[in-house]
C-alpha cells in the first residue's frame, strides 16, 4: 500500500472516531437534559403526593378523632408512634406533628405525654427531603371532674423525598 493510501486510511479513522465522539457527547447532553427533567417531574409528583397526604392523612383511621371532625387524636397517635408495623406504610419520608398553641417543647414519649411539644410519628431516615404542612386540631381525653376532650392547635408536617 502506498504512503498516500495509508495516510487516507488514517485520516478516515480519525474522522470516524471524531464523528463517534461527537455522537456520544451529543447523546450524553440529551441524556443529561432528560434526566434533569425526569428528576424534576419525579420531585413534582412527590410534592403533589405529599400535599395530598398532608390534607387527607388527618382523616385516616390511624389519626382521626372518634368524633370524626377534622382533628388528630393524640391518644391514638402516641401509641401509633411505637408500632413498628407502620414503618413502611405511608409513602412519605417522614411525618411529624407539632403543638403550636399552647406552646410546648420536647419530643413526646409515653412517659412525658401530654406535657410535650412534638410527635415524631414516622421517619424513614431519608436525608434529601423537603416538606409540606397544614394546621390541625390535636385532641385528647382528660379527666378532671369528668372526662372531657381537650383540643389544642397543631401542625402536621409531611416530608417527601427529593431527587433533584
Amino acid at each position, binding site marked *: 500500500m502506498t504512503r498516500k*493510501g495509508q495516510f*487516507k*486510511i488514517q485520516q*478516515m479513522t480519525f474522522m*470516524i472516531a471524531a*464523528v*463517534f465522539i461527537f*455522537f456520544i457527547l451529543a*447523546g450524553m447532553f*440529551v441524556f443529561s437534559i*432528560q434526566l434533569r427533567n*425526569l428528576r424534576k*417531574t*419525579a420531585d413534582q*409528583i412527590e410534592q*403533589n*403526593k405529599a400535599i*395530598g*397526604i398532608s*390534607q*387527607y392523612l388527618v*382523616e*385516616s*383511621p*390511624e389519626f*382521626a378523632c*372518634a368524633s*370524626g*371532625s*377534622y382533628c388528630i*387524636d393524640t*391518644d*391514638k397517635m*402516641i*401509641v*401509633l408512634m*411505637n*408500632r413498628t*408495623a*407502620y414503618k*413502611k*406504610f*405511608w*409513602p412519605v419520608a417522614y411525618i411529624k406533628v407539632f403543638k403550636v398553641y399552647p406552646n410546648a417543647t420536647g419530643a413526646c414519649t*409515653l412517659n412525658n405525654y401530654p406535657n410535650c411539644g412534638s410527635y415524631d410519628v414516622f421517619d424513614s431516615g431519608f436525608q434529601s427531603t423537603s416538606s409540606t404542612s397544614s394546621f390541625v386540631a390535636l385532641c385528647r*381525653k*382528660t*379527666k378532671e371532674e369528668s*372526662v372531657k376532650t381537650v383540643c389544642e392547635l397543631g401542625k402536621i408536617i409531611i416530608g417527601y423525598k427529593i431527587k433533584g
Partner: protein
Amino acid sequence: MRKGIEFSFAWLFSIVAGAVIIFLAIYAGARMISSSQYQASTATAKELSIIFEPLETGLASGMSTQAVLSSETRIYNDCMMTGIFGKQEISLATKSGRSWSAPGGKIPIENKYLFSENIVEGKKIYFFSMPFEFPFKVADMIVMFSKEYCLLNAPGFIEEDIENLNLGNVKFNENCSKDSVQVCFGAGTKCDVAAYSNDGYETGYVTRGYEKVYFIKNLLYPAIFSDAASYECNVKRLMKKASQLALVYRDESNLLSVKCSVVSGSSLSDFAIQAAKVNSSSQIALLAGSANIIDSDNNFAECRLW
C-alpha cells in the same frame, strides 16, 4: 482483461462505517422512544396514584372522581400479600397505533385499597370510594372501572348510594346500553354479575361467571366492580389493616383505662388475632359477630375509641 466495478478502500471503509453509524443512530432513536414511552407511562401511573388521596372519604359516605387520559390506556392492577399490610402495584400501557406499548414501571401502593379488574382499559377511568367499617373505620375502598355497568332491580338504598356518587357510566334498568355489564340483584337472566342476599344486602355473595365472592355491608360495591382475585386479595389486606388498627386501639385502650371506661384491651387483642387469620371473603361474616360485640362495648364506654 475483464472490466469490473472498482471500489477504492476509502469507499469501502466509509460505507461500512456509515452503515454502523446509521444502525447505531436508529437503535439509539428506537431505544429513546421506548424509554420515553416507559417514562411517560410510569409518570402517569404515579400521577394516577395521587388522585387516590382526595378519595379519602372522612365523614362522607362516598366520593367519586374520574381521570380522562390523553390516549387509550391499560391500567394493570396487581395485588399481593407481601409485608404486613400487603401491597398493590399499578402500571400503565398506552396504545400506539394498533398495538399496546409494554407496561411502564410498577408503582407500589401500600396504604390504599384499589379494587378493579386485573386490566382496566379505556380513555376515561372512573373511581369511587366508600369507607369500610369493621367495626371501626378500617380504610377507604377505592373502586376503579371503565366499562359501563347496568344495575338491574337494585334495592332502593343501593340505587341511592350510586346516584349520590354521580358516576357517569353506571345506569339503571331500562336506561342501559346493550354492551354494558349487566348486574342483577337477586334472580335475573343474562346477568354478567349477580348479587344475592337474604338480609337486605347486609351480607351475601356476588357471582361473576364461575367466580363467587362474599361480602358484608359496603364490600358489596367492590365485589360487583372488581374481579375475584383483586377482591379476595384486597379483602385479606383490609383484614390485616383491621388487625393492626385493633392493636393500636388496644394500646390506646390501655392508655385511657386509668381515666375512663373503654373497650377492653383483651377483646381488641382477640379481634386482632382473628382478623389477621382471615384468608378468604367467606370468613368475614363469621368475624362480624365479634366486631359487633366490641362495637357495642365501645358505644357504651365512657371514652369512645372510634
